[in-house]
């Protein structure tokens, strides 16, 4: 009786929910015309430009601070001056002939939010601090590598191996310029600078307890705790908006227009970035006009499509490959995911994926087109290699794997001298829990492989992130799904981390191909863009032939805005919305 009543009431309510969500929002006047409200899903980790590595943090940082050069509108291969008055090039002499020295003339008359003037000394300090802070798991290696030729400031034992002189020699003030000298020529350098060269005030940092830029005090500012840096929850930049407060209890960031901005000040008076975890609440907010932009997942998108007053901008490219499928070449024998650990029909041996026929068979067993259609509603591209579309080095004519049952069977028949086909195997495919597209992909792979031979037994399993992380690190995952978002818009970032033996993924996979390593290093330093492109084409083709990974999707993204938002533009490299050009009306 109880159950019937409870069930009926629930059912009635669910039906009314359906009815109510169908009610459109009426046309309304612009709410809060000088304030932009963004409802998003994650809090910033820190507002420190040298500590942060997540998009939520940078969404604030890149509206409050400026870099030396900016990307030109929506382009990621062209730059315009920022706090530097010219973009260095060989033509204007600001890049030396040997490609190692970059000179940035610094703009004059720029003020920080506290009213003090910007000087070249602040620029040099900001970059040295970015290099020096080198917090574990942070982005400092992005500039440490090209500038000082090291991946970190500490060795395996934790001893410092970078000196103050290293920093001051590599990043120098020369009159009104800041001169940066690289270890070796590095093609992507300007790309990295456009994204990571934020400028802060040295005096402000020192006055607020952070590094004053001198040799005497530097030691304790290496690998500091997040909450100990002056820039954690306070900001003093040159950017279009000032930080009013980061209210971590209310989970909102409040920004205000910088009326003394060195370009024309923004039209918006105020920006509020609020964390709203519940998707249904965000959707209601944008329908009511209480939010001007919301974050949404593609699964939730249909709920705002066709709603009056809401505008959706779709098919926006990203430098992202997610997911890709990775094979581990030398699986830890204690892994719970390899069954018996032997090729006896009830497991796989730790070196199962060392046989290229196994990898090719897996490659032919996946239905890439169906996956794109079902898991992403067709919104994306199959990347054909580890370099995403739109980036230098992407070859639209590259051969790539498609779903082919006959070829899959043929490859399996040849694997391990025919024993795989006759004996069969058992293994588990893993993905991180909560990720629906990856779950779909794992399921598709499992079903297609099992359909080839009744002796093939494939399980799929979701692991919570902490377990996934730990088992990746311990090389226990035979086949796993994960993705990569670009650090900067250059193919080296993908080529290195997917294919070079010291890159992130080959390290987890225990994959090492010396030929690939050589090619990755060669392509990194090649100054001629045409020759560089040819080298990356070669690399992608090698990845096709050696099959260390399967590249499933480069998804496109979308933005959900109120129609009264004007001036919004998208750049794949932007960590979030650039509020500078935006107005409402």
């Amino acid at each position, binding site marked *: 009786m*109880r*159950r019937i*009543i*409870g069930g009926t*009431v*629930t059912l009635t*309510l*669910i039906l*009314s*929910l359906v009815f*109510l*969500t169908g*009610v459109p929002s009426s046309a309304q006047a612009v709410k*809060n015309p000088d*304030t932009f*409200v963004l409802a998003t899903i994650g*809090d*910033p980790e820190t507002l420190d430009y040298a500590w942060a*590595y*997540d998009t939520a943090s940078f969404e604030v940082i890149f509206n409050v601070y400026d870099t030396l050069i900016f990307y030109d509108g929506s382009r990621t291969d062209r730059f315009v001056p920022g706090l530097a008055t010219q973009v260095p090039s060989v033509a204007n002499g600001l890049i030396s002939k040997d490609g190692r020295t970059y000179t940035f003339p610094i703009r004059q008359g720029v003020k920080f939010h506290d009213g003090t003037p910007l000087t070249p000394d602040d620029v040099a300090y900001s970059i040295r601090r970015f290099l020096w802070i080198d917090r*574990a*798991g*942070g982005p400092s290696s992005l500039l440490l590598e090209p500038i000082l030729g090291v991946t970190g400031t*500490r060795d395996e034992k*934790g001893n410092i191996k970078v000196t103050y002189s290293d920093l001051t020699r590599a990043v120098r003030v020369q009159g009104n310029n800041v001169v940066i000298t690289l270890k070796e020529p590095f093609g992507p350098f300007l790309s990295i600078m456009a994204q990571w060269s934020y400028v802060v005030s040295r005096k402000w940092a020192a006055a607020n307890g952070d590094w004053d830029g001198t040799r005497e005090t530097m030691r304790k500012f290496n*690998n500091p*705790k997040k*909450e100990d840096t002056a820039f954690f*929850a306070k900001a003093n930049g040159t950017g279009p908006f000032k930080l009013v*407060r980061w209210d*971590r*209890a*209310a*989970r909102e960031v*409040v920004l205000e227009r910088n009326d003394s901005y060195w370009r024309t000040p923004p039209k918006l008076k105020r920006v*509020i970035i*609020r964390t*709203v*975890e*519940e998707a*249904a*609440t965000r959707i*209601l907010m944008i329908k*009511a006009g*209480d939010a001007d932009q919301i974050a949404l997942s593609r699964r939730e998108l249909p709920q705002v499509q066709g709603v009056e007053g809401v505008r959706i901008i779709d098919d926006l490219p990203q430098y992202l490959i997610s997911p890709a499928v990775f094979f581990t070449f030398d699986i830890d024998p204690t892994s719970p995911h390899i069954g018996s650990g032997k090729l006896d029909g009830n497991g796989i041996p730790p070196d199962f994926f060392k046989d290229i026929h196994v990898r090719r068979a897996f490659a032919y067993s996946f239905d890439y087109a169906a996956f794109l259609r079902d898991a992403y509603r067709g919104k994306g591209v199959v990347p054909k290699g580890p370099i995403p579309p739109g980036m230098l080095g992407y070859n639209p004519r590259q051969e790539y794997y498609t779903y082919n049952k006959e070829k899959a069977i043929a490859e399996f028949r040849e694997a391990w001298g025919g024993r795989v086909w006759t004996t069969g195997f058992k293994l588990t495919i893993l993905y991180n829990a909560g990720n629906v597209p990856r779950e779909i992909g794992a399921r598709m792979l499992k079903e297609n492989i099992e359909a080839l031979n009744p002796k093939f037994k494939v399980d799929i399993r979701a692991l919570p*992130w*902490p377990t996934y*992380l*730990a088992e*990746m*690190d*311990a090389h226990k995952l035979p086949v796993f799904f*994960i*993705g*990569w*978002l670009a650090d900067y818009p250059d193919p080296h970032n993908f080529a290195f*981390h997917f294919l070079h033996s010291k890159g*992130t*993924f080959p390290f*987890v996979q225990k994959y090492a191909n010396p030929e690939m390593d050589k090619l990755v290093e060669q392509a990194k330093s090649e100054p001629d863009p045409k020759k560089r492109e040819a080298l990356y084409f070669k690399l992608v083709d090698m990845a096709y032939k050696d099959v260390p990974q399967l590249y499933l999707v480069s998804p496109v993204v979308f933005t959900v805005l109120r129609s009264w938002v004007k001036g919004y533009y998208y750049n794949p490299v932007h960590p979030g919305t650039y509020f500078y050009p935006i107005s409402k009306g």
Partner: protein
Amino acid sequence: MTAYIARRLVLLPIVAFGVTLLIFILLQLLSPAMRAALFITDPRQLQALHEIIKTYQLDAPFHIQYWNWMKAVLTGNWGWSETARMPVLQAIKAFFPNTFELALLSFIPILLVGIWLGTLSAVHRDRIIDHVSRFFGISGYSLPTFIWGLFLLMLFYGHFRWFPPGRLSLEASLYVNSPEFRRFTGLLTVDALLNGQFWIFVDALRHLVLPVLTLTVHDTALLVRITRSSMLEVLRQDYVRTARSKGLAEPVVINKHARKNALIPVITLSSLLFVGLLGGVVITETVFEYPGIGRWGAAAALHLDIPAVAGFALFFATLTVLGNLVADVLYAYVDPRIRLR
């Protein structure tokens, strides 16, 4: 009585620390690499895993970790909460008043309506009022908070635009965070009145309507049922029959004699309900974007934010022990047959 209370209070720190010890023991099941997941959230940070473990000493043996934590807690440092982006104590101070305000404003209607309806049901047993109240009781109790909360939000915010989610409207929030507004208790309704800003009081109340409504439905139903059965039990007693035969008016019999005795189990339940409201309204807080402590606690547990989980547990173990103590004292106060030894 005083000796009893004193004895119970002495047990308090033992219970509280016992709970946290249990949590640390459970956390032993997590390898250092798993604990690093709090800091490694992106594949781009994978290669830093081992350095993170070293930096945050995640591989220190359990007893050292517990000892360090306890030493710090005793000196007032409850550690840093990654999920809250602030020290644990500061997080408790920031979030708890919000939840307390919500719980208090929900508890009063739960208590009043629950007892009133429950009594009414018992007195007019098997009549219409009884059936209606039992129907609403069962549906309210069996309905998932999530469905009910979202439904209310869609109806009263999505459709009518009367009651928005969040704590305050934009204008009110800007004023509250400006230097003109002084915080006294952390409860916005009270502070608004103390600041003489009646419009903020109204604004805060407006944002509380839906969360309170969501919370009251479930627990009122529970209280109605308990009150009803307890009342029925009491109404059967001989002394009630005696009171009636003495010629006392029915309202006097009910209110003066029966109800007080019927309240005994209700008191016990209510105090547990209140403590539960204080710590466990995660779903309501999430749906209505309400910055409470339950939401933080759940996030901390999900992300393995160990200092936050331990601090949260310590805080709530203390609250629960105190809540039980209050219930026991009230119990003894109401029922003269009970002697606290």
